[in-house]
């Protein structure tokens, strides 16, 4: 009897529900696998950072937290290499670059998005064209030029290099274009100057885009390797990436220490990311980065 009534709405609803549940299970299973793949190396890093060299590669039995955690790995790293100096350099560099990047590119982007002026298209084209140009294509001439300006081996060189990217202008412009023009027009009629419109109206509205740009810039600057490798040669000027690489070279077998250093190098970026991440997807969506 029941088979004859297989098509009743109730049955259909039930099978749909069942499908949904199966779907959910599949989704969670996939997510679980991906999450494990994503996070396992970090857990391994944390675990290895409190192990002794011998314990790191012991697989049978594998333990996450050793019986006697070597917390002093985290103290030792500060004395083995001038880690503090490296962190200091990187922090200064990253903050200055991020600040300059946010300021100058939002400034320029406002002009491109909301003002009319001569050669607007030509200037914007110059920016766009360089986005597709890998930095490595012109790193050598750029280096030669910087050196002739006496900027070789100075943090200032890295700042000049990273603070004026085309990407930032592009990203901010896309965002500003999404803000209705009426807002600016109304302000102009009220007699506000362009500078005040930028400062009082546009800037407060651009929090999501600024957060996005902050994360991108911060992550890029903090993690840059080739740039500092070429420009910062003296030990006292090196950044944490160079320092960490150097440390890995010198203390190759001190796995615990290497991992402790790695953990330390991750903390600042992760803090910045966690602080800004709630704006992040929104920021990307509203900047039209999606295309």
């Amino acid at each position, binding site marked *: 009897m029941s088979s004859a009534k297989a098509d009743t709405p109730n049955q259909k609803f039930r099978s749909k529900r069942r499908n949904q549940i199966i779907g959910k299970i599949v989704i*969670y299973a996939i*997510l679980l696998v*991906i*999450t494990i*793949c*994503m*996070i396992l*190396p*970090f857990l*391994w*890093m944390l675990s*290895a950072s409190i192990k002794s060299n011998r314990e*790191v*590669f012991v*697989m049978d039995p*594998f333990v996450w937290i050793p019986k006697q955690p070597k917390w002093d790995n985290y103290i030792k790293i500060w004395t083995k290499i001038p880690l503090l100096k490296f962190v200091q350099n990187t922090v200064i560099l990253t903050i200055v670059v991020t600040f300059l990047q946010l300021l100058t590119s939002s*400034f*320029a982007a*406002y*002009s*491109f998005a909301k*003002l009319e*002026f*001569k050669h*607007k298209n030509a*200037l914007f084209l*110059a920016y766009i064209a*360089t986005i*597709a140009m*890998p930095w*490595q294509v*012109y*790193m*050598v*001439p*750029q280096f*030669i030029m910087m050196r002739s300006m006496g900027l070789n081996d100075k943090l200032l060189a890295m700042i*000049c290099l990273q603070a*004026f990217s085309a990407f930032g*202008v592009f990203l901010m412009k896309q965002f500003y274009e999404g803000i209705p023009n009426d807002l600016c027009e109304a302000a102009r009629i009220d007699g506000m100057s362009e500078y005040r419109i*930028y400062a009082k109206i546009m800037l407060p509205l651009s929090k999501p885009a600024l957060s996005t740009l902050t994360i991108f810039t911060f*992550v890029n600057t903090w993690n840059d*390797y080739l740039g500092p490798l*070429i420009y910062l040669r003296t030990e006292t000027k090196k950044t*944490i990436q160079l320092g*960490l690489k150097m440390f890995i070279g010198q203390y190759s077998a001190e*796995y615990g220490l*290497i991992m402790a*250093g*790695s953990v330390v*190098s*991750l903390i600042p*970026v992760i803090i910045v990311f966690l602080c800004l991440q709630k704006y*992040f*997807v929104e920021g*990307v*969506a509203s900047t039209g*980065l*999606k*295309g």
Partner: protein
Amino acid sequence: MDEKKAALVQELETEAAELMRQIRAETDIQKKKKLIVKRDSVQRKLTAVRNNRRISRETKRDLVAYSFIAPNFIGFAVFTLVPIVFAFVLAFMNWDGSNAISFVGLENFKRMPQDTFFLAAFKNTILYVLGTVPLTMIVSLALAIVLNQKIRARGFFRTVAFFPYVASLAAITAVWSMIFHPSKGPVNYILYSLFKVPQDQLPKWFSGGLVLFTLVLFSVWKYMGYYMVIYLAGLQGISAELYEAGSLDGANTWQKFRYITWPQLRSTTFFVVVMLTINCFKVYDIAVMLAGGGDGKLSTSATVLVYYIYQNAFNYWDLGYSSAIAMVLFILVLIVTLIQFRYEKKLEA
């Protein structure tokens, strides 16, 4: 002063009248438009002079706009545009950075086909791009679709997927080289103990034919979170009504993806693929840190274009050749980007 002003007014008026005459006479609509613009500008100048303003409103407007652009543009022009032009010039030169520079024409480019290391770097870079771009795209799209569903702890999963992207390369490659250590690492240990792979056949992840595979794997792992966010943003731009309409038509999940999600994401995919391609062609630090061993030198199985550019510039001081290889890199990126633009245009039409 007044005389001067009168003379200027006179001059501008004549110019405006002359332009007006030309406009009437012009038949080509495009040229006509241009002339009208020109006349407007003269007219505006005229009003400015008549009203005793020193600069016209138009000039003032331009100056304000430039003042916004200047801080960024000056830095950008000096530190990016000038070196790019310089790079183009240098590719046709022979220079070691100290002695006299000399023009050698296409000599630098002619050397490439005979250069084993260049060819290896070229091949490896292409293979790396071919492996990384589609894989990263697929994985990040899939992840974005999953994380766009209404599920528990969505924020947590998104954060986790983005973790590898923010992690510093030196740190994370150190972990990878431990996890994939050929004889002690957990990955090979699992292969050995669970899958009974004999000890001498355990894969050597960082050398030989496998090294490129490891590089691709690592890149996908590290960058999928980044592109996932971009896809997520794209997905959020698709209106829910489309899906509702699809449901009413009885579309299943795959059909919804095929006929709604995928076409709607076209511009996002375009952006993702272009950015991915550009970024993949730039690969350098991943290769050096994963496959460089103790001395950071790459053998022919792992060498990439940027490594060879660096090597020629800073080790051999052959700056011309190094720039010429950089040009090849640029042309590669350009070609791929143009093909993608073409394809995108075709789809749009």
